[in-house]
C-alpha cells in the first residue's frame, strides 16, 4: 500500500501525480472464502478491515451490488457521537467514539474526524431531566457530557432563536467529543486498508440467493457467480429484510426513508452539531461550508431512495424555528437513504437461527456513527463465534425475551424511533 503523507504528496506533485495507485483493488470473485460479507458500505468494509487487522483473517470477500459506499454510508449527515442513555448502547457507542479518535492513524487515510461537539437542545424541565439522566449515565461510563443552561447555549451559538421561539430554548446536553467525519473517506479508508491486507472488494456483484446445505448457509449466489464461504455476514442496512427472506427469515425490521439535505457553501459559522428538541431538525456545517441537515423519517416502508415534500417542509420549519437566519440560505441537494428501522430502535449484531449466517442490522438512522464499533464487533462475532462484550445486548431474541433497548420508549412502532 502506498503510504499517504505530506512528503509523498509533495514527491508525487513534482511528478504530476502520475504514480498514485488505486486506493483499493477492484477484485473479481474467487470460488470461495473463509468469510463473505454482503454489503460494501461502511459497516461491511470496517468488518473486513478489523477481521484482517485484528483477527488475522484475510481470506475475506466484501460483495457490493453497486459501488462501495453508494448506500447509506454515502447518504447520511456524517454525525458521530456516543451520547446514549441505556447501558445496552452506551459502551458500544463509546467504543465507536474511541475508534473514531484513532481512525486516521489506523487507516492512514484522513477521514476528517472532527470533534466540534454535539449539542442536543432542550425546551422543557422534563426534557432537561431526561437529558440529565442520560448525561449522568454517560458520565458513569466515563463518557464526556455537560448540561448547559440557556445562557451557556447562547454564548456558544448566539444565532439561535432565544427571543421569539414557539418552544423557547432552555439549554442543552453537550458532548464535546461528538462531531462529524467525512463519510466517503471512511468508506474509502476502510476499503483501502482491508484491500491492502488481502481482502477482496467485489463491486457490481449483487447477491441473488444464499447457498444452503444441510441447514447451513455455505455461500452466496451472485450476479457474478456463486461464492462459497464458511460464514456469511449480512451488513446491508435497508436491504436486510430482502436478504434475510432468501433464508426464509422474518426480522423485527422495517425499511424506511430518511432524507438529508445540503445547502450551498457559505462561510462557516456553525461550530458543531445542533439538534432541535421540540421538532425534527439537526444541522452541522461541513469543512467545505455546506450546511448538512436533516429531520424526521418520511415514515412509511420504502425501498425507493427518495423523500416526500411534506417532510422537506417539516425539516425546514424546524430549521427556521431554531435558526431564523437560515431563511435566505438555499437547499442545494437532497437525498433519501433506506434505514433498517428495528422494533426498539437499537441494532442487532448476532447469529441467526441458521448456522453460517450472521446478522449486522437494525441501525435505524444511527448507523454512520456506529461504523467502527459495528465493524469491530461484527468481526469479533464472525471470527470467534462469540458476541463482543459491548455488543452483548444486541441479540435477535431480545424481542421474545423482552430485554429491549428502547431509548425513546416508543414501543414496536419503528417509524417513531
Amino acid at each position: 500500500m502506498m503510504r499517504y503523507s505530506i512528503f509523498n504528496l509533495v514527491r508525487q506533485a513534482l511528478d504530476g501525480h502520475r504514480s498514485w495507485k488505486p486506493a483499493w483493488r477492484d477484485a473479481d470473485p474467487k470460488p470461495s472464502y473463509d468469510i463473505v460479507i454482503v454489503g460494501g458500505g461502511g459497516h461491511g468494509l470496517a468488518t473486513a478491515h478489523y477481521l484482517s487487522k485484528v483477527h488475522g483473517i484475510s481470506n475475506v470477500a466484501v460483495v457490493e451490488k453497486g459501488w462501495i459506499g453508494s448506500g447509506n454510508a454515502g447518504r447520511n449527515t456524517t454525525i458521530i457521537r456516543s451520547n446514549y442513555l441505556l447501558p445496552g448502547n452506551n459502551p458500544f457507542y463509546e467504543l465507536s467514539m474511541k475508534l473514531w479518535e484513532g481512525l486516521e492513524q489506523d487507516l492512514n487515510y484522513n477521514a476528517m474526524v472532527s470533534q466540534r461537539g454535539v449539542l442536543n437542545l432542550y425546551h422543557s424541565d422534563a426534557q432537561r431531566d431526561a437529558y440529565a439522566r442520560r448525561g449522568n449515565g454517560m458520565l458513569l461510563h466515563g463518557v464526556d457530557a455537560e448540561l448547559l443552561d440557556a445562557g451557556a447555549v447562547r454564548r456558544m451559538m448566539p444565532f439561535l432563536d432565544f427571543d421569539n421561539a414557539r418552544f423557547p430554548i432552555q439549554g442543552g446536553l453537550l458532548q464535546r467529543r461528538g462531531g462529524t467525519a467525512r463519510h466517503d473517506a471512511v468508506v474509502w479508508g476502510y476499503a483501502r486498508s482491508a484491500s491492502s491486507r488481502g481482502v477482496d472488494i467485489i463491486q457490481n456483484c449483487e447477491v441473488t440467493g444464499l447457498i444452503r446445505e444441510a441447514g447451513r448457509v455455505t455461500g452466496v449466489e451472485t450476479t457474478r457467480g456463486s461464492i462459497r464461504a464458511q460464514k456469511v455476514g449480512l451488513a446491508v442496512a435497508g436491504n436486510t429484510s430482502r436478504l434475510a427472506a432468501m433464508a426464509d427469515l422474518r426480522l423485527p425490521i422495517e425499511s424506511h426513508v430518511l432524507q438529508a439535505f445540503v445547502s450551498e457553501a457559505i462561510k462557516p459559522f456553525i461550530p458543531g452539531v445542533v439538534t432541535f428538541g421540540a421538532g425534527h431538525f439537526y444541522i452541522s456545517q461541513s469543512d467545505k461550508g455546506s450546511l448538512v441537515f436533516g429531520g424526521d423519517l418520511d415514515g412509511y416502508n420504502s425501498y425507493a431512495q427518495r423523500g416526500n415534500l411534506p417532510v422537506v417542509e417539516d425539516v425546514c420549519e424546524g430549521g427556521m424555528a431554531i435558526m431564523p437566519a437560515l431563511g435566505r440560505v438555499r437547499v442545494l441537494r437532497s437525498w433519501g437513504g433506506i434505514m433498517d428501522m428495528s422494533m426498539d430502535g437499537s441494532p442487532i449484531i448476532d447469529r441467526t437461527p441458521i448456522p453460517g449466517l450472521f446478522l449486522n442490522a437494525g441501525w435505524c438512522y444511527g448507523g454512520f456513527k456506529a461504523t467502527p464499533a459495528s465493524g469491530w464487533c461484527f468481526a469479533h462475532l464472525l471470527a470467534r463465534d462469540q458476541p463482543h462484550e459491548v455488543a452483548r445486548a444486541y441479540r435477535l431474541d431480545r424481542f421474545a425475551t423482552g430485554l429491549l433497548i428502547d431509548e425513546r420508549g416508543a414501543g414496536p412502532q419503528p417509524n417513531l424511533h
Partner: protein
Amino acid sequence: MSEFSYRGDAAFQRPDAAAADAGSRYVEAVYLRTNPAGPHEELWYHLFGCRSWIKVRRDTRTHEILAVRAADAGGSGS
C-alpha cells in the same frame, strides 16, 4: 405535517391470548415484519381528518398507490 400517517403492516392480527403458544404468536405478530420490496398491505390513519384507519396497498419500490379502502366495514370513505 401530513394529513395521513402510516401505521404499519396491515397483516397484524391479534392472536388468541388463550392459545398455548400465545407468547410466541404475539412476539411474531407484534415484532416480525415481512417488509417486502414491492406491493405492501399497510394501515394509514387519517390523523387530521375523520380519524379513520385505512387499508392501503402500495408498492414500496415506487410509492405507487395500488388500492385504498376503509379498514372497518361500516360507512363511506372520507
